[in-house]
């Protein structure tokens, strides 16, 4: 009960202090909101890229191009090698005519040129869809085995591209983490400065409380809660800005993004991540408030 009473007092004091010094608190709120919006945007982009890569990984394909004069027996061996491989989920044969048709569909301007050659200049191939989560080593071994088979002129494997994109995404995530840490630090410094100013404006009150023997935690409490409230409000404002930006982006480019990335892959921050951002921001604010009015400072003043 005493704890709840004291907590309520801290909250009332903190909110009153923010109300009195809102002009001072505004830069801190803007800094926190910007930091949260930037980190949130990074997380949203990262989650979207992750979903796209996961989808690509699930549909990763292996193309085995065949020699124009491949014997039926050799072709059957290639097909058997693919169908027997545990990494392969499905196999489809693309003959030369279908390859030419696909080319004409993808590049209509060049279609007459290809048609003028008489016979299809494109090789027949096997397209194999890989199972999701297949180890890269296993796929590499399969590719090497296929390349050694008679009648195989080339093997194209888009997994390497996906792996490179995944590595790039991981680097981006690490960079985002560093940026988040820097933004968090700068927000903490701004909050600490605002709390310090609030402390300076209530110095007489603090002196009185020290002289009447108020517990040091009770004196620091309102300043810690003030930082906590700033962190929470700033984070909520940042998320609101991010949500508005996301809604605007989806309204303007939603169709194009859905076509490019796939439906439902461009989604807002999950609520757990948003909650984590608010909690982290509140804790950074509280820590800044706690550091701004240090115990040592109070003891020395006392």
């Amino acid at each position, binding site marked *: *009960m005493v704890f709840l*009473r004291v907590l309520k007092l801290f909250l009332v004091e903190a909110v009153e202090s923010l109300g009195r010094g809102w002009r001072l608190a505004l830069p801190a709120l803007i800094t926190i909101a910007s930091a949260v919006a930037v980190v949130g945007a990074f997380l949203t982009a990262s989650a979207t890229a992750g979903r796209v890569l996961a989808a690509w990984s699930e549909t990763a394909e292996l193309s085995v191009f065949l020699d124009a004069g491949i014997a039926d027996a050799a072709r059957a061996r290639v097909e058997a090698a693919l169908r027997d491989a545990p990494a392969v989920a499905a196999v489809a044969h693309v003959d030369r005519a279908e390859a030419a048709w696909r080319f004409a569909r993808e590049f209509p301007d060049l279609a007459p040129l290809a048609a003028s050659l008489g016979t299809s200049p494109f090789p027949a191939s096997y397209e194999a869809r890989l199972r999701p989560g297949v180890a890269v080593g296993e796929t590499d071994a399969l590719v090497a085995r296929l390349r050694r088979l008679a009648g195989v002129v080339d093997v194209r494997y888009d997994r390497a591209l996906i792996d490179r994109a995944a590595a790039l995404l991981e680097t981006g995530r690490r960079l985002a983490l560093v940026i988040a840490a820097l933004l968090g630090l700068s927000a903490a410094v701004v909050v600490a400065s605002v709390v310090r100013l609030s402390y300076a404006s209530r110095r007489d009150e603090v002196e*009185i409380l020290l002289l*009447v023997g*108020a517990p040091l935690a009770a004196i620091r409490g309102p300043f810690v809660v003030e930082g906590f409230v700033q962190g929470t409000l700033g984070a909520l404002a940042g998320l609101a800005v991010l949500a508005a930006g996301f809604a605007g982006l989806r309204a303007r480019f939603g169709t194009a993004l859905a076509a490019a990335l796939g439906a439902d892959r461009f989604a807002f921050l999950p609520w757990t991540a948003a909650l984590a951002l608010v909690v982290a921001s509140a804790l950074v604010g509280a820590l800044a408030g706690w550091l701004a009015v240090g115990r040592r400072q109070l003891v020395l003043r*006392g």
Partner: protein
Amino acid sequence: MIETYHLSKIYTRGVHALRDVSVRVEKGEFVFLTGPSGAGKSTFLRLLVRQELPSDGQVSVGGRSLVSLSPAAVQEYRRTVGFVFQDFKLVERKTVLENVAMVLRVMGVPEPIQQRRTLQVLQGVGLQHRLNAFPPELSGGEQQRVAIARALVNEPTIVLADEPTGNLDPDLALEVMDLFRAINARGTTVVVATHDRELIRRVGHRVISLEHGRLITAG
């Protein structure tokens, strides 16, 4: 109850605020601490409330040395001491009631008890009709009475006052002194620092005199 042994306080650049002061104030006693400006009265009180540490010597209250107290123990000790300032040190944005209750609020005292104790002490200093007034709306004497009420609300065993009548006219000064006498009559030890010799003569109690940080008389 309050004892100092060879108490000295030297500030930076070698300024001696107190030199070798040994005095004793008994429990329930009313003592004036006097001397001209710069005599060391305020320093003496700051050492008694553990706002500062002595450069040399000892200061003890109720048999407990104040020098070696931990920060938490300092706060615990201060709850037994009421302090009254010359400039009142009231929080202007808080009402009379809030200024006095503030002490109990931060200690987590339940609201009904806060209310009862605050009203009691404000009644004791004759300000029960100004509960919702803000400090700037009060006269100097009223402000000092609020400060005294705030010092008393925690039921201290010692009250220390640093020039409590310094900003008041002689009639108001006597009124405030009457309050201190009433507090003392209930068994509270009272130490009042003042340079007003006329006031001391009219109130009459033991006097500890300081000059240039040295003890001149201890009554």
